[in-house]
């Protein structure tokens, strides 16, 4: 045998051995591996405000109240029952369940609840969601299992805000907190020194290992007070690109993919024999904003003509391959009766020519890339729909996100007459789809200034219950008023999808309206 032949055989043997040893299957176990294209910047509840860090916190921590799998109705989590609310709507009394422990072994008491909520509010991290607790005036803890929260003003959505991860209950002997609110103009170091890079809570999993942008390993915590998770370990892998996650899912490197594939990738998985698709209820919305200070958006007739020209079904079909639903109000259909399709009622069957009779020049701005790969197609479809009326001459312009945000809003300084935006809710209440857009002072856009609207928003917040008839009626009135004046045109709500290999069960249970992907319900058949 020649030297060259011997060398070639040796290399082949090494390659074969390497392939056998290094194959992903060689590393597979009975645990669940979840892939995502999202990132987790922090696991501190005072700082977390992104979808995926909140999702992790839902799996490792607990809040006073939460949403059970498959339900949009808020329910007790760390408390025995839903809170008692005073008649004036300013005082909420919670009774804690007994025997709950943190992952460091210390007992969870009312002192920890007060500490955690004050901490989140006082740290006041601009990246965080502490502002959701801004209505809190004072917290009393008369005994170890009773928490009394006093509000500055009544807010019927307050309980749903407590279900968000900013209100995760933390052990006061592990975390630190300022003793008073940190002002808005504080330097980052002032509030960051109170934030932790590791997490200790009372949820079903502990974070065993977290390497940013790479992976996070969660192991079940034996002291958890609820039902035992259906798996032992969950590994979350973070992908830079959805195409890599697709390869990993198809090759079996991951068991579940949650957030997010492009519409084309979603389509490619539709008829897979190895992978199941699970569809959730949409909460992320897209809309078109008018700056009423600039021409031609100043004109109510023009805004109405745009609203009448929009064919949402076509946008959903052509741009998103059906991975969305048409949106006829800022409140998505997942909110049931609170969602009133006011734009369909007012503009369904109408044409742009019913409102204007002359050609209008409009520049439509969008930010390419920020909202994903489909943004340019989305903007082009909106342009096409407007120009097909023969009443609009639309110029499309895109800007990088930093320039876009600096130039688009607030309306008083904004330079774009019309632009495309998106929104993901902070808490599951219709109020979060209305007040941030239509309130004259609290809105980040500030494109609408109507005293009657402000009054209605105040009314729904001070209603006697989250789903009372009077509140639903107020919601309907708000949405109809918004459709009448058209400061914003709602366009579509994105449908969330999850994909799992055939041997994974439990995914359907967690694809409910609450937008929480609960790892503890997932199991691997034979794993």
């Amino acid at each position, binding site marked *: 045998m020649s030297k060259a032949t011997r060398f070639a055989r040796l290399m082949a043997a090494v390659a074969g051995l390497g*392939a056998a040893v290094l194959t992903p299957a060689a590393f597979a176990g009975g645990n669940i591996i979840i892939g995502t294209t999202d990132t987790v910047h922090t696991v501190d509840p005072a700082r977390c405000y992104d979808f995926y860090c909140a999702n992790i916190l839902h799996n490792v921590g607990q809040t006073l109240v939460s949403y059970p799998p498959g339900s949009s109705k808020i329910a007790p989590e760390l408390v025995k029952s839903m809170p008692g609310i005073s008649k004036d709507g300013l005082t909420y009394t919670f009774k804690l369940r007994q025997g709950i422990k943190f992952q460091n072994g210390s007992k969870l008491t009312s002192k920890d609840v007060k500490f955690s909520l004050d901490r989140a509010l006082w740290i006041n991290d*601009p990246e965080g969601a502490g502002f959701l607790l801004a209505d809190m005036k004072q917290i009393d803890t008369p005994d170890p299992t009773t928490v009394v929260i006093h509000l500055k003003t009544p807010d019927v959505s307050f309980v749903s805000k407590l279900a968000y991860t900013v209100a995760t209950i933390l052990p006061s002997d592990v975390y630190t907190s300022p003793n008073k609110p940190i002002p808005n103009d504080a330097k980052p170091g002032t509030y960051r020194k109170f934030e932790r890079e590791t997490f200790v809570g009372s949820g079903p999993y502990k974070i065993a290992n977290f390497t940013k*942008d790479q992976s996070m390993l969660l192991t079940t915590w034996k002291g958890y007070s609820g039902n035992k998770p259906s798996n032992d370990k969950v590994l979350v892998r973070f992908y830079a690109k959805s195409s890599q996650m697709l390869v990993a899912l198809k090759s079996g490197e991951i068991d579940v993919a949650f957030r997010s594939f492009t519409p084309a990738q979603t389509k490619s998985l539709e008829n897979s024999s190895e992978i199941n698709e699970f569809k959730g209820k949409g909460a992320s919305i897209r809309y078109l904003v008018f700056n009423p200070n600039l021409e031609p958006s100043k004109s109510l007739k023009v805004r109405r003509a745009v609203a009448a020209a929009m064919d949402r079904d076509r946008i959903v079909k052509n741009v998103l391959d059906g991975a969305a639903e048409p949106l006829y109000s800022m409140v998505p259909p997942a909110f049931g009766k609170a969602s009133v399709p006011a734009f369909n009622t007012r503009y369904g069957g109408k044409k742009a020519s019913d409102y204007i009779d002359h050609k209008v020049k409009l520049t439509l701005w969008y930010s390419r890339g920020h909202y994903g790969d489909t943004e340019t197609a989305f903007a082009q479809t909106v342009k096409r729909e407007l120009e097909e009326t023969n009443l609009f001459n639309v110029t499309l312009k895109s800007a990088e996100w930093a320039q876009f945000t600096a130039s688009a809003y607030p309306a008083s300084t904004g330079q774009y007459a019309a632009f495309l935006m998106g929104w993901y809710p902070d808490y599951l209440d219709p109020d979060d789809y209305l007040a941030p857009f239509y309130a004259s002072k609290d*809105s980040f856009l500030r494109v609408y200034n109507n005293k009657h609207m402000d009054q209605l928003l105040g009314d729904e917040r001070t209603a006697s219950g989250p789903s009372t008839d009077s509140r639903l009626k107020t919601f309907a009135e708000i949405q109809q008023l918004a459709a009448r004046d058209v400061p914003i045109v709602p366009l579509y709500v994105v449908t969330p999808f999850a994909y799992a290999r055939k041997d994974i069960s439990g995914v359907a249970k967690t694809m409910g309206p609450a937008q929480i992907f609960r790892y503890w319900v997932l199991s691997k058949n034979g794993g």
Partner: protein
Amino acid sequence: MKKGSFGHYLLMRVLLSIPMLLILLTLVFVLLHAAPGDPVTATLGSRLPPDQIAARKEALGLNDPIYIQYFRYIGHALEGDFGHPITDSRSVGQIIEDTAPATLELVIAAMIVAVLVGISVGALAARLRDTAFDLGGRFFGILIYATPLFWSALLAQLYLSADLHWLPSSGRIGGFYVPEHITGFYTIDSILTGNWPALWSTLSHLALPAITLGLLVGGVFVRLVRVNMLQTLRSDYIDAARARGISERSVVYRHAFKNALIPVITIMGLQFALLIGNATLSETVFSWPGMARALVLFIGARDYAAVQGIVTFIALAIVVLSLLIDVINALIDPRVRY
């Protein structure tokens, strides 16, 4: 210090690095500040009302005159303080500490692939000049250098991972096997801790990105080594060696090969800079959690404070690297000093 001495040469190179460094830092600052918008509005604009945005900008000194911001930035960079991102609670220094080992591990592995492939194919092609191997080697060198990295990486992922299931498609390690942190280099940490599953997992994850990135640079080496070998083989001292009756094998590998490698060492240093640049693509395609991927993520998040810090660090690293190359060259080849 005597002109032409190594000490004199070193001093001159260090002094020359100072204006180079200042120019680089100024460029980074100017380019990032020339872009419209500001990091606070970009990051928090859709969350906070305008008055709070203004307060945050004031707190970060973004309302200060541009020259004050510039001198503050230069001062901090020279002190080794690369700043604090808006979207990450870690300092840029900490982010670099967390992610640089991953990038270096990938770049070193890619360089090993490049050197092995480039030098062996190049040297052999020179020895077998004008044969089918030489032709194939030259073609390989051009083709591999001209092939876009993202394309070859995607092809490798599709065939070797998705179809054949031979290698993991992305990531740095199977998450169940992360070794105890000692150096941050998973290969080294796995060996030091005797964590063999972690070592296998690291090597399997390293294979695709290192090979695709390494082959890119290997293409340059193939052509360079071949040309240098051919030139060296035509030298007088090689003719003299042959005349002395030394075997052809010994002439090629013991006498010609070593001298042909001198320019390769210079290029190798420069290729390190190229590899760090290309790591941006490679780390993105393979979800490799290194410095370049962090940079891309911060660009995506419009966190210019972080982008400025990481770019500044990379610029500094390249200045130091080029200084080192010059010093090594001067040590190997004394003619460089004059």
